[in-house]
């Protein structure tokens, strides 16, 4: 399984851009047309982008402006226009709210644990699969492991609950054999590991596919040369394979870091009752419970704005770190 692509493992969306531009003579000619001429020439294309752009403007951009409500004391009876402006007081309230800080802490801890513990599994499994000769077996395994990626979190948690919960086969087995049952689904102490296990179960397949592709992109000649030089399989792994995957690994790390604050909202929401607010509250559930359900819309908006800004900072920082490692991050320098 090889990837047909001009730039192996190069995670640049813009790369396609440039490939296109190089093919200029056969593409859109840039010479000889005025601005308006170009619009006329490309009107179909522009029209094609219209529905998507409209939807995004309405459902993504307008809410961005709606974040100003974080600076109001939003009142459902007065709406945007009528609600008073209160400057930063919502943020003041936010920053003195221990529940908020706890939610932030939870978010970071859960993200962190997932970040660290998730990666080794798909990498290891990808290496394992890569060494399987039969492509039939590989496809089969890949196909099956990728399946949970398509399940919703409600479904995944339900499955975990069914199997590992009080009524599940695991605990039934333990009970039958006179052993103490394991309280997995409702234990706040081990919640972070449960959450990571769920993430691995659900997303390992996706990771495996990505890493397999990265592996396939490594030049086989390197292996041959190394083998000729007497390097055994482990040395080859360490010196060729892993470095060859570095780009993808770093990219994924950057992506996950950037998304750290959005860690499994739905996943946490459905488990909040089982494991307690303390262990499962993350920024998004905080916004939902204290902002929407608590009828404090501006307060929740403030939390959301804080999260958005912090996420942006994280992404930029993560990208910088990637650059420091000499890799392309999300965009090239």
């Amino acid at each position, binding site marked *: 399984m090889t990837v047909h*692509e001009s730039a192996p*493992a190069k995670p640049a969306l813009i790369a*396609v851009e440039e490939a296109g531009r190089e093919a*200029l003579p*056969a593409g859109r000619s840039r010479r000889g047309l005025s601005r308006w001429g170009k619009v006329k020439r490309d009107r179909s294309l*522009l029209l094609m982008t219209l529905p998507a752009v409209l939807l995004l403007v309405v459902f993504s951009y307008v809410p961005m402006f709606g974040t100003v409500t974080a600076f109001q004391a939003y009142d459902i009876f007065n709406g945007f226009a009528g609600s008073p402006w209160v400057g930063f007081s919502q943020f003041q309230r936010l920053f003195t709210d221990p529940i908020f800080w706890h939610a932030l802490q939870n978010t970071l801890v859960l993200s962190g644990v997932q970040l660290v513990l998730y990666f080794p599994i798909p990498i290891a499994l990808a290496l394992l699969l890569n060494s399987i000769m039969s492509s039939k077996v590989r496809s089969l395994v890949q*196909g099956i492991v990728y399946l949970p990626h398509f399940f919703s979190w409600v479904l995944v948690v339900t499955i975990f609950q069914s199997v590992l919960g009080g009524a599940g086969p695991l605990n039934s087995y333990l009970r039958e054999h006179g052993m103490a049952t394991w309280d997995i689904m409702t234990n706040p102490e081990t919640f972070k590991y449960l959450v990571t296990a769920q993430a691995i179960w659900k997303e390992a397949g996706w990771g495996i596919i990505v890493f397999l592709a990265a592996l396939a992109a490594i030049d086989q000649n390197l292996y041959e040369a190394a083998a000729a030089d007497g390097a055994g399989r482990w040395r080859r792994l360490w010196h060729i394979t892993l470095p060859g995957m570095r780009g993808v690994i770093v990219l994924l790390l950057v992506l996950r870091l950037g998304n750290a604050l959005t860690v499994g909202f739905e996943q946490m929401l459905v488990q909040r009752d089982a494991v307690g607010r303390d262990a499962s509250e993350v920024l998004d559930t905080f916004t939902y419970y204290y902002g929407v359900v608590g009828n404090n819309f501006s307060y929740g908006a403030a939390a959301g704005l804080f999260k958005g800004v912090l996420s942006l900072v994280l992404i930029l920082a993560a990208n910088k770190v990637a650059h420091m490692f000499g890799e392309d991050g999300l965009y090239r320098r």
Partner: protein
Amino acid sequence: MTVRSVWEEKPTAAGQTGKTFTIVIVLAIILVPLYSIVLTSLSTQESVNIAGGLVVVPNGITWEAYRQIFGNQLIVHSLLVSFGITIVGTAISMVVSVLCAYGLSRSGSFGHRTILMLLIVTMFFSGGIIPSFLLVAALGGYGNYWSLILPGAVSVFNILVLRAFFSGTAQELIDAAKIDGAGDWRTLWAVVLPTSRAVLAVITLFYAVGYWNSFFNALLYMPDNGMWPLQMVIYTYTLQGNAMPGSGITTTGQYLGHQQIAPLSLQMAVVTLTLIPILLVYPFVQRHFTRGMLLGAIKG
């Protein structure tokens, strides 16, 4: 790589066994829960009691749970709702995304870099739950099905994947179409789409699964449980353990009438219903994955 390269060592017996063992475990971890969920939904009350919960060893098969489920108005309706929004939503999303992706895929076309940037920004910054909610509510979406479709109709990631693929379509084909006098629309329809089956299948699956799994929007915008999609039903009646509507469980929790089926079976039957469409469609699309998905994954 179906043939071992010359420079590779011979696999050892220990290595092979270890690998096989690991693979079996991995597959089991994924498949066994699914298997027992389906099995429990088909199990008689006695088997569930014997198993003390989820059934792993079959002991008695009955379709009673499904009979009751399909007789349950709420569940049947939620099935329809889920199917409805999945089909309509996927159609809308695909049309909008394919058009947009193609519209942005011709390099040098006017303004496409700006529009692209516009799209990409939304991947990294969004208004948040509350401004989005207030907007949809202001637009009248509360209690309306479109609130489950339109806000999430556009996935910029999917558009980028489609775009990358379209850009890669051999230029000669497009030139040939141009010479034949085809405009952009015809080119898209007649030339680019037919050669993009793989990526179209993949992205359709992505969108469809996204809609099928929609939960939070329903939680936020649908108070009336007559309008709930299947995921909300699972959340409320399986995960939270509330008594299923119309199941004859009175407000004191007693059962009236049918007692022959364990509530766990009913719950697992609902879960199975959610699983089935995915399990059915997945194998067909999966063979497209290996190429289409990789492209997107690497790029993305």
